[in-house]
């Protein structure tokens, strides 16, 4: 299993970036082995449609699960279509997120956390 988490940091002690579409980087981590890699989020500086491009990025990286703070409707619908499990409204460090997943203290999100923030 591969877990994608939006972050401002560069390793497992970094914090979850509450924004999915506009986060600086994604950390992709195997929760069993704790092996990880970090990829830049190209949508961070995109003028619009950030959520969609960010979702595309984690899909292309082969993620099965997303743990995040906020996930908007466009990102959510793309992740849903790719059958990626989304855990939203999670905060803290990457370690915290993995602990939460392991202890099954969070449930899969069934809807986006809020409206899209279109920049027009």
């Amino acid at each position, binding site marked *: 299993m591969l877990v994608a988490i939006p972050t401002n940091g560069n390793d497992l002690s970094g914090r979850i970036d509450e924004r999915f579409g506009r986060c600086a980087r994604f950390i992709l981590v195997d929760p069993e082995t704790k092996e990880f890699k970090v990829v830049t989020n190209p949508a961070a500086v995109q003028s619009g*449609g950030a959520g*969609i491009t960010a979702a595309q990025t984690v899909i292309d990286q082969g993620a099965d699960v997303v743990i995040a703070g906020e996930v908007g409707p466009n990102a959510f619908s*793309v992740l849903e*279509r790719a059958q990626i499990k989304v855990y939203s409204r999670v905060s803290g460090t990457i370690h915290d997120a993995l602990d939460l997943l392991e202890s099954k203290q969070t449930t899969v999100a069934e809807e986006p956390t809020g409206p899209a923030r*279109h920049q*027009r």
Partner: protein
Amino acid sequence: MRLAVASGKGGTGKTTVALGLAIVAGEVTLVDCDVEEPDDHLFLGGKGDLVEEVTIPVARVDEDKCTHCGECARACVFGAIAVVKDQVIVIDDMCHGCGVCGLVCPEDAIHEERRRIGEVTLQERNGLHLYTGFLDIGQPLATPLITRLKTLAPDNGLQILDSPPGTACPVVETIKNTDHCLLVTEPTPFGLFDLTMAVDMIRELGVPFSVVVNRDREGYEEMDRYLEKEGVPVLMRIPDSMEIAKLYSRGLHFVEAMPEWRERFSRLLDELTGGGA
């Protein structure tokens, strides 16, 4: 002649000034470009007659031809396309209809359909022809509707464009290619801050401009200091008047109810049009 009325800050009196000028102009085309929240029509009554349903192109993928290579998603600068395993997702609201996905598709698997984003209506009263753009609720793209609205509204005589607030794309679309822009402001810190952004924007566009100060009153000198420093002419000051506000709240423009204001708006129009529209 094309005359735009804009503001920066919302609620400063764009519609008040645009309507006042249109009412005294006689034969005129008034264009309500504030398509997210048009309000000029409220003073004429009704919504007017449909001129056109406005549509924009949206990308559609032929799944029989698509190999899910992802070229279209990578080319889309608006992030409107995602390629997920064996399907392509187009987020219609984000698609600007630019067509680049179709150009880069190696399988020729993308075509365009049209989708409705709003409508343009027309109503007439005493020589005032009002063209209004109504953006459909939930649609995020105001600019293409304004572009179409400006194309549909005749500009052979005097045309007055009532702009949306702000300094973003819909405002730029409204003001560009006009002959003059009136910036309506109010003597408050918010009014001044947004005015400075509007002035910066309009200087980029190269459109000549001047200022109308609305709800004018004593006690905020920073506005005048800024206007003087920047050399921006003030063509009219409308006082903070309970009588004007009361008329307006009943859907009556003070130009129609107060003869001295009809005279002042006529002089303002003459000044802007050089005496003859």
